[in-house]
């Protein structure tokens, strides 16, 4: 689960990680009131959406008067912001963060993520703040400092030294401030079961203070049960409606831009099915894992979600029944076609436990738009052909 910048900064503040002062606003009036409350003579109006690249997309603007705050908040609230991370459809901006202007002397980068190879959290820092870190990693990897922290010993002095000397910070007071910054960030990463924290840029002010100018946080979904305060930060308007609806039924769904709807058991086989459709010359319309306990209700829900996508010209149901018996799934498919109006050809491949019985059930049902397949390759091929005939 991801949260907004303003929410990440609330968590930062709780742990003493310094940030500029700011207040979130849902309306232009609130934005103006917030700017007045913050005081000063310079403010930043920042679109709050779950995607990076907001500045380049026109979602972060500097205001030098209250009138300008009003004007910019009016422009940004309600705009559809397109960045390199939102996809071409963009995201509707429903909140803006009004933040006091900061005196930027230098821009750095700092993040904490899980290093899967080391199997421990890693703190990454760079002097190249404000830039896309993936570009830095590609072009100047030597400018990224990586410090892995073994949780069994926690954040130690040497971790801090590797970080500050790596960043070329020479002033004693600044070194101390940066070590504290990083150690607090590590603490909040661990205590909140974060999956990643990214601060880009982390700024040094003219007076030598370090501030998190931006804040991005993601959390381990499996650990949310023990963090109700973070779960409460969930913004469902940022999540895909179909993905959310699917998850209520234990289905894992992701929309893609192709023509063949897929319904598969198991995440790996679901990806493998998409790959096979592609290999046979077709395009997958979605990823859909029905999980280990597919039944009539989940299959019906799956059909419903797949068919919401107007690009779908055929559906490929690919189930390898292990513990789940194929005859039950065949019956589930038949029941599902009674609940949902399935108006495109459905290619069904059922393999594994009780597969012959399942084939018999589908054959006897004699439904026009159900096409049976013997294996994965055969099914994908038939689905691609069926989609082509519909086009």
């Amino acid at each position: 689960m991801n949260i907004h910048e303003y929410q990440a900064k609330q968590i930062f503040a709780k742990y003493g990680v310094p940030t500029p002062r700011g207040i979130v606003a849902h309306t232009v009036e609130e934005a103006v009131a917030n700017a007045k409350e913050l005081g000063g003579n310079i403010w930043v109006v920042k679109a709050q959406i779950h995607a990076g690249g907001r500045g380049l997309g026109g979602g972060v603007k500097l205001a030098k008067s209250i009138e300008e705050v009003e004007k910019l908040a009016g422009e940004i609230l309600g705009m559809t912001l397109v960045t390199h991370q939102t996809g071409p459809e963009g995201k509707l901006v429903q909140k803006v963060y009004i933040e006091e202007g900061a005196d930027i002397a230098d821009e750095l980068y700092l993040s904490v993520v899980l290093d899967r190879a080391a199997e421990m959290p890693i703190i990454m820092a760079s002097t190249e703040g404000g830039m896309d870190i993936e570009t830095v990693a590609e072009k100047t990897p030597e400018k990224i400092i990586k410090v892995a922290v073994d949780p069994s010993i926690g954040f130690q002095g040497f971790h801090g030294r590797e970080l500050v000397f790596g960043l070329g910070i020479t002033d004693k007071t600044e070194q101390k401030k940066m070590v504290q910054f990083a150690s607090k960030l590590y603490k909040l990463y661990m205590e909140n079961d974060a999956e990643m924290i990214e601060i880009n840029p982390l700024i040094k002010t003219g007076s030598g203070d370090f501030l998190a100018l931006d804040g991005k946080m993601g959390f381990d979904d499996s650990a949310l049960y023990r963090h109700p305060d973070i779960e409460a930060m969930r913004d469902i308007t940022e999540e895909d409606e179909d993905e959310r609806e699917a998850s209520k039924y234990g289905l894992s769904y992701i929309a893609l831009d192709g023509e063949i709807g897929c319904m598969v058991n198991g995440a790996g086989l679901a990806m493998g099915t998409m790959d096979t459709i592609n290999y046979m010359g077709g395009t997958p319309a979605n990823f859909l894992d029905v999980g280990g306990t597919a039944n009539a209700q989940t299959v019906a829900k799956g059909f419903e979600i797949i068919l919401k996508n107007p690009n779908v010209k055929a559906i490929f149901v690919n189930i390898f029944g292990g513990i789940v018996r194929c005859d039950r799934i065949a019956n589930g498919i038949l029941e599902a076609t009674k609940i949902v109006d399935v108006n495109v050809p459905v290619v069904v491949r059922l393999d594994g436990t009780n597969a012959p019985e399942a084939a018999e059930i589908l054959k006897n049902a004699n439904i026009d738009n159900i096409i049976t397949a013997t294996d994965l390759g055969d099914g994908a091929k038939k689905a691609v052909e069926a989609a082509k005939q519909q086009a």
Partner: protein
Amino acid sequence: MSILVNKDTKVIVQGFTGSEGTFHAGQCIDYGTQIVGGVTPGKGGMEHLGRPVFNTVKEAIKATDATVSMVFVPPAFVADAVMEAADAGIELAVIITEGAPVRDMQMAKAYAVKKGMKTIGPNCPGIITAGECKIGIMPGMIFKKGNVGLISKSGTLTYEGANQVCNEGFGISTAVGIGGDPIIGLSYKQLLPMFEADPETEAIVMIGEIGGDLEIQAAKLIKEQIRKPVVAFIAGQTAPKGKRMGHAGAIISGTAGTAKEKMDALEAVGVKVVISPAEIGKAVKEVLSK
């Protein structure tokens, strides 16, 4: 021969009396696995599925000489259970549980390594040595005995791959579902050399997916140590960037972890890489008839 487990392996079940544990332990017993008992705290002294129940892993080992534990404990408590097994001297824990917090597994894995306990999973179908010992939730009847070793991150792709291998007239020595979480136990790196050393195994199928770099590490190891033919499939060539594809670890970040990167690395060291999982069986036939 086989790797890790065989007909003599003595297995206990942690989370034995829960619904998942009960169902799958029963299936394993039917397959012929030596399930010698189980652990459910507070139910020690009971009998379940005709096997004794113990309060702690230590008591279970003392009474049964078990060396392997199959873990069905719910996600919030699974790390505790795995660490208990490591502490008690279990040699291999097969962790089936799905949805364990990453931080918990990080701690449990580190402790297991320290105690010298091997782990498989979490979030995996388990391990099976065809015809001898099934420790997990896979449908046993797909796995006919034979000379192909199988390592897979995905459950259903394990079944798909094994089924194709058997349909081509070959069979499986041992199949290991290593799981698709960000932190897992035994992986290609440890399992490939075991298959290389196993006289029964003549070819190896490895099934990977997007995310992380375990397959890249495997490619390096294959180049140095593996002489038996390897067939590989990497799921997720058509997966979009930045989206989590079902498995917690199946995500492409930036340019790293793509299927193409992994397929290229494996191909470069002589692995027979297939573009579709539908080709796994044929590819195995090809490498074994050379």
